[in-house]
């Protein structure tokens, strides 16, 4: 029996590699284009279309949140605002889009507001906005996902999407979140 233990570890003994759960960008683009068309056919105005997209994103977000936390956080919850934002910037973005978000910034004049800025988000890569829909940004879908993740993890926030240095997700946290974060920090 002892000799078996000494043998070189075979492939069977190694743990399975995680692999790369990647999806073709073409497949994704087709699916997302269908989502946008589906929403477009059911609304009349641009803001309505954005909120419809956000609503669909929220479904994704709520289902993704728990899975991500179990996989990446090792049975711990996140209670600090900044660590949560960094979790979104790195872990969350990596899982969803295969890379980290480009920039995470805090607004100069408001501690409740944070920005995640992406020059060219994946969802917008194949979308050229028609002239008559000037302000439309289909990344509203991602904004919905972010909102669901933050709300689910007990950081109530509103996430909106804007055109600014590319696409900018504006995250505005509830007053209570900032108050709680200060309380935790003071300890």
């Amino acid at each position, binding site marked *: 029996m002892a000799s078996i233990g000494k043998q070189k570890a075979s492939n069977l003994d190694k743990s399975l590699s995680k692999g790369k759960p990647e999806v073709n960008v073409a497949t994704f683009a087709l699916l997302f284009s269908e989502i946008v068309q589906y929403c477009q056919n059911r609304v009349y105005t641009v803001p309505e279309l954005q909120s419809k997209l956000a609503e669909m994103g929220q479904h994704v977000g709520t289902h993704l949140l728990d899975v991500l936390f*179990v996989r990446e956080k090792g049975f*711990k919850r996140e209670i*600090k605002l900044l660590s949560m934002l960094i979790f979104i910037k790195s872990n969350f973005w990596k899982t969803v889009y295969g890379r980290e978000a480009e920039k995470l910034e805090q607004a100069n004049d408001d501690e409740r507001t944070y920005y995640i800025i992406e020059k060219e988000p994946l969802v917008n890569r194949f979308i050229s906005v028609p002239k008559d829909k000037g302000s439309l940004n289909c990344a509203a879908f991602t904004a919905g996902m972010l909102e669901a993740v933050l709300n689910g993890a007990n950081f109530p926030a509103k996430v909106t999407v804007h055109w600014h240095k590319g696409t900018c997700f504006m995250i505005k946290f509830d007053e209570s979140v900032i108050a709680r974060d200060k309380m935790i920090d003071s300890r």
Partner: protein
Amino acid sequence: MSNMAVCVAVIAKENYPLFIKTTPTDNELQFYYTVHTSLDVVEEKISSVGKNANDLRELYLGLLYPTEDYKVYGYVTNTKVKFVVVVESSNTSLRDNEIRTMFKRLHGAYVDMLSNPFYNPGENIVSRKFENVVMGMMKQD
């Protein structure tokens, strides 16, 4: 050998039950009361008074309270969904570690169930697979 757990409950963020399973006894209702009572203790444990940040990050809450016949353990996920497990006090083979493992399995099953796109968070849990995991935790060894 006695039972593993006698009652397993999943409680939503807003404190209404999503799933509750008990071993068949005459007084099932008693378990509902026990679980309901434990929610106050859960609330107390996750409120941030007088603990350091590291304790607050832990999902497993430990023993909530013992009664004469039962011990009640609690666990809260990052989305504030609560798991409550009731075991018999006479069962000495279940130590803290075993309970912790049990909760991790339960959390895993919950997450698997949540990944189903047809399940909306906040609905009652009717998944057969989830129920099987719970049954596995309650069956006689």
